[in-house]
């Protein structure tokens, strides 16, 4: 019963550059709707619901479970999240480096990813 189990994830070579640090994102295959990046906690049910919804929508995306990172990686990723969501809360979904959904809201996600 590990958090996130059952999701169709595969480690990819995708790397996000964060102030000199590189952190690997997990890729979930699906329809290309642009660059969809999801910041999550492995222990959070709202984050899990967000992953499930994106999978149900068949959207390809990348995610990272921030709580599983080493300290300096965490700091770099938090900095990146704050650009989009100053509260740095989870889940944070960044769509095409243009807009952001903070917290799980199915309606808002379906509106913003078309």
């Amino acid at each position: 019963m590990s958090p996130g189990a059952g999701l169709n994830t595969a480690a990819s070579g995708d790397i996000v550059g964060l102030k000199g640090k590189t952190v690997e994102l997990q890729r979930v295959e699906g329809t290309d709707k642009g660059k969809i990046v999801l910041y999550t906690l492995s222990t959070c049910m709202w984050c899990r619901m967000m992953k499930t919804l994106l999978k149900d929508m068949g959207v390809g995306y990348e995610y990272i479970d921030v709580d599983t990172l080493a300290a300096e990686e965490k700091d770099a990723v938090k900095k990146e999240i704050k650009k989009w969501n100053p509260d740095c809360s989870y889940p944070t979904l960044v769509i095409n480096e243009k807009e952001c959904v903070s917290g799980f809201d199915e309606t808002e996600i379906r509106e913003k990813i078309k």
Partner: protein
Amino acid sequence: MSSDVGKAEVTRGEVERLFARLDQEAESAGYHLNPDREFTLGLIEGMLVNERRYGYWACPCRLASGVKKEDLDIVCPCDYRDPDIADYGTCYCGLYVSQDVVDGKRKAARIPERRPPGGMSAPAERMEEPPAGGPASPMPGSPAPTQPGLPDLSALKYPLWRCRVCGYLCARGQPPEVCPICRAKKDRFERIL
């Protein structure tokens, strides 16, 4: 990458046992777990994962620092649970909900983060600095309440302790080991007088 390496995985049985305990404790004190059982079990699993990682039940939906002193306000039940249930019908992670949600009159959805950015608000006086045991002195900066007809609170025989989770008050030398109302531990009490 994972910080849980070498630590035994949380089992379904453990999760079910803690669920039964928390459910019983909640109902006996007027609180309610989220009636969506699978959702609730998932959160409890997250708390147990955090207990393995950090040694305490850090909120599964917030990023803990791993330093207990800094995370104390987000140890479940968190300092923000009761006001969030009152305002939104659910706590931040959704583990605890109001009667309206249990009755299906209201839905638990995402709510804003009440925790101040960067962590907990300044405590009045934390358990780390217990009073020497003598008579309570007034809080620094608070004016002495000397209105006619009102008792002089600085002359109280015992210090007054407040549970930061549920607001329970008690006047005694030390706060209780466990809050009799919400089961928060002794270190969640602050001295207010």
